[in-house]
């Protein structure tokens, strides 16, 4: 662990990633103290300052009802991060268990589970989430649900592939010979070998979840106003191009910064774990 952090800090790219992710985390966690206008995350109207380009008062400019865009971007980060954590916290264990069982047990179990994941994976990810949001009321909770449903098969696939190759390995066979339970073999023997891949994928996926969620709200199927959300800010602002460019450019760059940060770290992790194995 300590060695990992040292490696992360030594590589300029992963250092940049750490800085970006920390920045985003700090902004999101301490939004109440950092945002110049904390109440602007809700329904506030300020007609003196509406639709203004960046100034020293509103460094990202102000939106169409006069709210400070910088404050709203900060609060939107908070929502994006919560969504990302929750989605991964559900999708990862579910997918991992399905993948482990299918990979280790094989047989009919394998066929059914893997065809099930095939069904989910053969609907382009965003299309499935969009179709689900068409059914559900567009709320924060449902957006989480829709994205989670499309996410778990990827973990199932990943873990399945590893588990399938591991099940012929000596240590697994040895455990079988001494009569270890299926539970023990899957979770105690095989799972630890999947962890590096899972952790790497989770870091990269943090960025992807932010992308997918913002895509949903870009289409009007995600978090609803007045709750600030990066995707809906871009969608809303795009109507006012090119005159009010700040309405789209800053929220768009905000997505880029956060996802880029997670991707840089994920990349570095992949190299570290890759080198380890």
């Amino acid at each position, binding site marked *: 662990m300590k060695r990992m952090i040292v490696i992360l800090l030594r590589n300029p790219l992963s250092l940049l990633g750490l800085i970006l992710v920390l920045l985003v985390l700090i902004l999101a966690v301490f939004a109440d103290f950092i945002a110049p206008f904390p109440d602007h995350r809700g329904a506030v109207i300020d007609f003196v300052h509406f639709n203004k380009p960046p100034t020293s008062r509103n460094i990202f400019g102000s939106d169409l009802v006069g709210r400070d865009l910088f404050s709203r971007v900060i609060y939107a980060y908070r929502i994006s991060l919560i969504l990302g954590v929750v989605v991964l916290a559900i999708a990862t264990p579910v997918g991992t268990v399905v993948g482990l069982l299918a990979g280790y047990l094989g047989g009919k179990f394998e066929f059914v589970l893997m*065809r099930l994941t095939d069904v989910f994976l053969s609907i*382009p990810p*965003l299309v499935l989430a969009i179709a689900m949001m068409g059914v559900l009321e567009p709320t924060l909770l449902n957006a989480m649900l829709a994205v989670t449903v499309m996410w778990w098969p990827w973990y199932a696939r990943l873990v399945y592939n590893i588990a399938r190759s591991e099940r012929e390995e000596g240590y697994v066979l040895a455990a079988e010979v001494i009569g270890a339970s299926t539970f023990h073999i899957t979770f105690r023997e095989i799972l630890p070998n999947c962890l590096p891949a899972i952790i790497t994928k989770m870091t990269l996926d943090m960025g992807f979840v932010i992308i997918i969620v913002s895509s949903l709200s870009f289409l009007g199927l995600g978090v609803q106003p007045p709750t600030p959300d990066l995707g809906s800010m871009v*969608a809303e602002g795009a109507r006012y191009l090119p005159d009010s460019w700040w309405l789209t450019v800053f929220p768009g760059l905000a997505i880029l910064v956060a996802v880029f940060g997670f991707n840089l770290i994920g990349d570095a992790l992949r190299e570290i774990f890759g080198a380890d194995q």
Partner: protein
Amino acid sequence: MPPVFRLLLNRLGISFIVLVGVSMLIFGIARIIPGDPARIALGPNATVEQIDKLRETLHLNDSIFVQYGYFLSDLSRGDLGVSLYTNRPVTQDIAQFLPATLELVFFAGVMMVGIGLPLGIWSARYRGRWPDHVIRLLSLLGVSAPSFVWAVILMLVFAFYLPIFPIAGRISDSYEIQRFTGFLLIDTLLAGDFSAFSDALSHIILPAFALALSGIGQAARLTRANMVETYDKPYIEMAQAYGFKARRIANKFAFKPSLIPSLTIIGLDFAAMLGNAFLVEAVFAWPGLSRYGVAVILRKDLNAIIGTVLIISATFLIVNLIVDLMIAFLNPRIRYSERGST
């Protein structure tokens, strides 16, 4: 039976099972939509009698299993029902909008391969040196933003500030092109109208590039990673020892084995692009299936939702099938293997 045929049959069988699964999934989702599709379809001024009549016609009063049965029997006749939003057969709507989306996605796919692979090769060849760092950073940036952000940024820069490209649509309305394939880039060439072709080309470049950017990044990263791995193999070291030109080594020895994993990812990225087209089409007013899809989802137009998702999934499966076959042809181990792959 030649192994490739067996593989093809195996794949087709699985694709069929998957499609049936998709149809059940989407059918289930579409039927639990809250709200009465008949009322929504008939609009604000419809009477109760009209609504009841339409419910009867649409079999909405039957159980979901009976409804699915009707759906399957209609489907077997190539009938996806009537869109309640456009009042036209869903197949007709899809036939009209699908070519625009496919043209966009294919063009983006060409960009992904045509730009992403060379960047990856280049990056691997100069690994550890500055072109490698620049390419890696750029390709990571490419995958770090949703395509609608790229679409908006590209539009702002190359259509508003530097008006090089048109901001929306597929072709200028002063051109009247006979539609044979629905792919304007092909139809304009078939008509021999080169100014129309360049017009259509200028329309597709920005949206396709916005759509392709993350794929380009992905392809470049992957190709690089695979090639770097290959570079460490003994036969490359041998080729280097023999004094082959670096470029020849890169293109001939290091690239080829790296192509197979890259192709797999390209198939997956194609799927992502079919979904991301929803975002890019919205920004560039591209008259494709995705815009239609969003419209029908917002209107709870059941037949159209099911039809759209089924067609997109079928397209995706077909592309993956083609990718699998290409891999099979490229990889002698699979080509000659008796078992095929699962």
